[in-house]
Each structure stands twice: as C-alpha cells, then as structure tokens.
C-alpha cells in the first residue's frame, strides 16, 4: 500500500485496458490506435514540435555535408595556427588573448555568415557550427539508443515480474528497489569512472574505451527501474483481469499471453514514456559529457561542446550558449510532444521520471 503511493509513477490501480469513455462514439469504431493517432495529429503544438525535431535530426544527419561543403575544415582536428579570410582580410583563427591576464588565446568569433566559422571557433580552432552538427548526431543517437535499451529491459523485467510473481518477482523487485534508491548521477558516475578508461568486456560484448556504446549503456541502465516499476504494476493488475485468467485456463502458452495479451495492453503506457525518456536522456547525456564522463574527445556531443565553451565563457560565450540552446530546444520539443502523446494515448497517466 505505502509502496504504491510512494512511487511517483505509480498507477492508480487497474485501469481498464481500453477505455470507451476516451474515444467519442464516432471514433470508437476505428480502434484505439487509430483514434490515438488521430488525436495526436490534431494536436497542433505536438505536430509543430515533431516537425522541429525532424528538422534538428535532418540538420545533424547532414553534418558531414556541412563540414565539407560549408565550413571546409575538419571539425575534429586542431587548427592552432590556421588563418581564415573574412571580408577579404586574412585573420588568424586563434588570436592571443587581450582580456583578463592576457594569457591563452581568443578564438575567432562568429561570422554569422553561411560559411567557415559561422559560429566561430573553439579554443583549438575547430569550427563550432560543424562540431555542433556532429555533436548533435551523437547526442540524438545516444538518447535514442539509450531509450530503446531502457524500454527493452524495463518491459522485459516488468512483464516477467508481473507474470510469474513469486520468487522471480521478489528477486527482481528487490534489485529494482536497490537501483531505484541509487541517485542517478552517482550510479552513472560510478559506472563511468570504472568503464570509461578501459572499456568493458563481458563474454561476447566488447565495448572499447571511448566508444559511444559506453554512455548509451550507462544511461540506458540507470533509468530501467523507473520504467520497469510502473510496467510491473500494470502487468500485475492485468494478471488479475478475466481475459488473462481465461487465457491461462485455456492453456495458452506464456509467450503467447506475453505477446498477444500483455504487450498490447501495456503499449500505450510505454509509448507515453518514449518522448519523456528521450528528453531525459538528452539532458543526462549532456550532463555526463559536461562532466567529461560521457562522449570522449575528439568526438563531440552537445554536452562536450558546452564544456569546451566553459573556459571561453566570458570571451566567446557563443561556444557554450549555442549547444545549450540546441539541447534546450530539442528537449522542449520532446516535452511538448510528450504532453501531446500522453493526451492522445493515455490521458490519465501520471508520468514523471527523475
């Protein structure tokens, strides 16, 4: 009892799988999925957010094109002594610093023209705009892959717990308990510091140090309990329903009950979680990269660029501002989309993670 109330994601008891009250009488004939999609498409805010997200993803996917055709520099190689021609005059990419103690260098500022150094250079003379696009690729990739990983594990664990109950549930649930009580950033830090330098080898899985799979695995793992718990709760309440009892009585094999009966009924909840998890993973990725335990140099992500910009904050603030804005915009769109998806698929879901 206490347990359910304490879990901020807890379900309000057994929600009937498909609520007739949600779709109007007119829509009810076309099935719950079509109804939900139609409702989502009518949500103008969510559609705009989706469009912006697609644009961001497209722009990031075009990173190599931008680097070769527009910026014309290698965004991963240092360019300490390079020069660039702006308005007909040649300027060094890195000029000796004139502010403060006069130590270090001030990279070239943003030109705001569609060409080399549109957003200026970082302290190694690399094109910030090109790095932003490459970094966005990594940020989106990590967030997406980590979300997938979390969902696969969480759905599997939640279903197993709810279906088999007894000792399976007891053991898995205790493990979730422990992980749930573990502060997310501390768990991520512990895993990163051990893994980041040497990589990880377990049996056939061999992740090299500096690989993108490390942050994906770490971020994917830390959120599993937050998703697995509500799914377990929902599975438990489904197991008490008559159609499952009937299926068991008819001797339907467990895997079939999993696939045909349980999975479709927890799917709305899972779909509602997708944009939220993506948003959360974007933030987590950028935070870990900012702490230098996420994406490793020379690779970029929006988090690592913010970190690069920290040393230039007062002289060239754009280096830190631009990637932060990119993260905020993407996460904002994901949150708007998340609200829309919730309203369309499972309006009574109370979703909040971390």
């Amino acid at each position, binding site marked *: 009892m206490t347990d359910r109330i304490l879990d901020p994601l807890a379900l309000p008891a057994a929600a009937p799988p498909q609520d007739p009250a949600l779709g109007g009488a007119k829509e009810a004939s076309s099935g719950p999925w079509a109804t939900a999609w139609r409702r989502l498409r009518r949500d103008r805010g969510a559609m705009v957010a989706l469009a912006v997200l697609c644009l961001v993803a497209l722009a990031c996917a075009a990173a190599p094109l931008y680097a070769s055709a527009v910026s014309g520099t290698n965004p991963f190689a240092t360019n300490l002594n390079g020069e660039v021609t702006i308005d007909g005059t040649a300027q060094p990419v890195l000029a000796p610093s004139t502010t403060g103690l006069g130590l270090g260098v001030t990279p070239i500022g943003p030109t705001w023209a569609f060409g080399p150094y549109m957003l200026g250079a970082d302290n190694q003379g690399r094109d910030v705009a090109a790095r932003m696009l490459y970094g966005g690729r990594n940020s989106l990739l990590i967030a997406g892959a980590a979300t997938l990983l979390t969902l696969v594990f969480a759905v599997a664990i939640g279903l197993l717990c709810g279906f088999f109950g007894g000792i399976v549930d007891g053991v898995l649930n205790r493990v979730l308990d422990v992980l749930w009580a573990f502060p997310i950033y501390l768990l991520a*830090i512990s895993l990163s510091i051990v893994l980041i330098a040497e990589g990880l080898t377990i049996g056939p899985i061999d992740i090299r140090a500096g690989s993108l799979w490390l942050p994906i695995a770490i971020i994917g793992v830390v959120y599993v309990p937050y998703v697995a718990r509500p799914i377990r709760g929902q599975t438990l309440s489904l197991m008490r329903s008559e159609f499952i009892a009937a299926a068991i009585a008819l001797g339907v094999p467990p895997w079939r009950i999993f696939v045909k009966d349980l999975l479709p009924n927890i799917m709305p909840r899972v779909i509602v979680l997708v944009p939220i998890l993506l948003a959360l993973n974007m933030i987590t990725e950028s935070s870990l990269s900012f702490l230098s335990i996420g994406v490793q140099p020379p690779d970029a992500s929006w988090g690592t660029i913010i970190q690069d910009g920290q040393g230039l904050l007062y002289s060239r603030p754009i280096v830190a501002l631009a990637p932060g804005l990119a993260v905020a915009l993407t996460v904002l769109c994901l949150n708007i989309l998340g609200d829309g998806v919730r309203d369309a698929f499972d309006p009574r879901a109370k979703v909040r993670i971390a």
Partner: protein
Amino acid sequence: MLFAILSRLGRLVFVMFGISVVVFLIFFATPGSDPAARIAGRNASPETLAQVRQSFGLDQPLPVQYAVMMKRLFVTQDLTSFVNRGQKVVPAVIKAIPVTLSLVLGAAVLWVIGGLIVGVAAAATRGGWTDRSLMALSLVGVSMPVFWVGEVMNLLSQSRLHHTFLFSWVPPLGYKPLLTDPAGWFKALVIPWVTLAILYIGLYGRILRADLIETMQEDFVRTARAKGLPESRILLRHGVRSSLIAFVTMFGLDFGALIGGGALLTEVVFGLRGVGKLTYDALQTLDLPVILTTVLYASFFVVAANALVDALYAVVDPRVRRAG
C-alpha cells in the same frame, strides 16, 4: 503499526546493504582491469600498487575485500586518497556537507514557494492567458540543462551585466561560511539557488496544476461550492490540501536526490566546494577512494531521506497508517 515500522526498517537496511554491494562490485569486480590500478590513480608506481593491494586486501576473496572496505569507510574512517597523498577522505566529505546543504536548502525554499504559486495561479486561471504563459514558462524551465542555465547566469551576473545595478552586488564565484559571514553567504548563494530551483519550480508547478484540476472535479469540491464557499477558499483550503500528499512525497525524494549528488552540476558551475564538487574533482583526477566514499555516503542519505518521507506520510495521511 509496529510490524509496519519493523518491515520498513528491514527494507531500509536491505536497500542500504544492496547499494553498498552494488558500489563495491562496480569498483572492485568489474571485469577487464586491475582494481588496484584504479584506486591508485594515474601512473602509479609499482610500490603504490603493492601498497594499495595490501591495504585493501585485494589478494583475498571478494567477501573479505567487501568487509575491509566497509570497515574502513564506516568504522575506522581511515580511507586515504592516493592521488592527494595521505588526504583522509571521510573528513573531507564531512567538511563539504554544509556547502551542499546550504545550496539545496535555499533552493528548496524557493522551489516550494515558486511551485505552489505557479501551480495554484495556473489552476485558478485554467485555460486563460496567465495559465498558458505560466505553463509555457514551466515547460521551458524543465527543458534546460541546469549546468547550462548556471553558465548563462554566470555570463550575465559575472561578466556582461556585472557593471549594471542588476548584478553589481554579485560576489565572485565561491562559497562563504554562514557562521562567519552571513551576508556573504547569502549573496554568494542567491544565483545558485535560483539556478537550481528553476527546473523544480517548473516541474512542481506543472504537476500541482494537473493535480488541482483533477481535484476540483471531485464530489467534495462540488459540495463545498454548493455550500457557497468562495472559489478562492475552495482552491486553497480544499484543493491544495488534497494535493499536498503528492507534493510532499515528491519533495522528499527530490530533496534527498539533490543532497545525494543531484546538485553536483550546480556546484561545479558555481565553484561551490560541496560534496558534488568534491566528487567532480575526484572524477577529473580519477581519485577512486573519494568517489567511492561520496557515492556511498550520498546513497545512504537518499535512502534515509526516503524513509523519512515514508514516516512523514503516515503522519500526514491516516489511511497509510491503517494500511500498514
């Protein structure tokens, strides 16, 4: 009731034990490398490695290593760093706690008040102009990475607008002890407080609004309306009170999580030498004993905070007491 408390305590102990085992396994039994090399830090000499092996009992079986580790952490508290030679770790962590507490407590006051105001104002003007702009702002607030907000704050208050009347009072980054310099303490922490609170004001405002709107459709609210009570009184006395339980739960969990490491990013950006900054510095030098200590102490704190919320819950809501 007694049974409920005992089973709760049992679970608490189990979770703490579980966490310590997980941390221990992560640090000492991850396949692929030598734990002694990890503990000793970068480029350690063979003598240091031998010393580490000996003092952590690394040549003995894992359960013994676990026992040695826990004893050194909690009983003798003599764990030392190998990166900063001889620095005792546990006292260093304890010294950093007031900084983290100051940061999180102040931010908590801000976000509870802010969240209440935003949630109630939005629910009261549901669908209206105020509601929509408050919710839009909240959504923006929860979408920005906290360390980036901190950098923007620094940029404005330390550099670009530092000469204007707005931010001329802002002292250089760093922490001032409350007892010796209360005014300095306050000035140094205002901007970090706001930075840390923004996310939670948005979060709590959104959740409180949703909760209030749901509550306002309940039967007892209709009764109150029928009784002729003014709408403002119904919202504040009836609505907010019934949403308070969810609010308290969330607060307990968030507060615990922030003390236990969640405030790390804010501390790093503002150069506040709290537990989070300590962890961050250790991360940069790969100083494993420090990280091990902060992680374990902070996790235990979070678990204790959660248990406290449980207890508070039983005080607030009589139904929980009965259900046991």
